């Protein structure tokens, strides 16, 4: 089954996404910040993560840097309120980010985006 990890410091959003993605048929896990995510990633081995850009603690840049040391290399969808330029988006794609979704978002839009990247993964 395709595994998705939700990394977000907003408890309500994290739990809601966890519930909805589980109902969609994904195996899910959550992390509440960068450290929590890095501690859990190699044990859970997600295929894809949704990563909130602005969390307390480690910055996203630091998380992506430390992720290089991990065995698991998930696809990353950023969840963000920020509007980036085209040039910045290109730089993000070079760092392993496959897509980004602007907050607040429609759940259907996020699920549609996730399916673009895990559509072909085997489901049990």
């Amino acid at each position, binding site marked *: 089954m395709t595994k998705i990890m939700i990394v977000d410091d907003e408890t309500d959003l994290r739990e809601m996404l966890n519930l909805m993605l589980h109902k969609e048929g994904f195996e899910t896990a959550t992390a509440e910040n960068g450290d929590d995510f890095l501690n859990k990633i190699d044990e859970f081995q997600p295929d894809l993560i949704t990563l909130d*850009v*602005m969390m*307390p603690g480690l*910055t*996203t*840049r630091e998380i*992506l840097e430390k992720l290089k040391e991990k065995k698991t290399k998930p696809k990353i969808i950023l969840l963000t*309120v*920020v*509007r*980036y*330029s*085209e*040039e*910045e988006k290109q*730089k*993000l794609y070079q*760092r392993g980010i496959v897509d980004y979704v602007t907050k*607040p978002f429609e759940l259907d839009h996020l699920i549609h985006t996730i399916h673009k990247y895990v559509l072909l993964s085997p489901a049990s």
Partner: protein
Amino acid sequence: MEELKVVQVNYWKEIRKEINKTMESLHGLVLLTHNSIEFSDLIDFLNNLRRNQQTTILYISLINSYSHIKQTLQTHPLASKKLYVVDCVSGFLLELQDTVDCVYRRPPPNLEEMKNLIMKNIQWSNPNIIIVDSISQFINFTVPTEEELHNLYAFLRSIKEDALGITRDTIILVYDDRMGSMKKLPTMFTDTIMKLEIIKEKPEWKD
């Protein structure tokens, strides 16, 4: 039928006929609410503000990256205004160096720290107008807690006393109201509360 209780009555005035007068005289502490506008829409708003006057603006961004701002300014120039930016968002993802008109800082975790950020950055930019975009990260006027309101009023009073001056006469706090109706308007300490509503539709293509 379930009986509903009125919790707030807000009056809004359409000011199209007096927009020039309103925008020329806009000063003090301003709350600018909007329905998820783009940065280009904010430029249009600013271009209506003090037309033909040389004005310096300090824009504290928790929404738009400096790179996005520069990209937008290429197609939507800011007339007769000098813009300085405190970019609180790009540093999360990219390693960047400060420039003459932009500094990269971490986003303030609360309004008290936001005040400190404003005070530190008015030194180098010496603005006439300060814009904070946005305060939506700190408060939701649909369901504000007592603590959030208390912190907001402390912030408003504090920046009004310490950040406003003779030449630095306007602070615009931007608020995105997409999270719901504004049940609590911060009428205390604010001089003006405006709503900017931009309605967009896909164009109808004709043969």
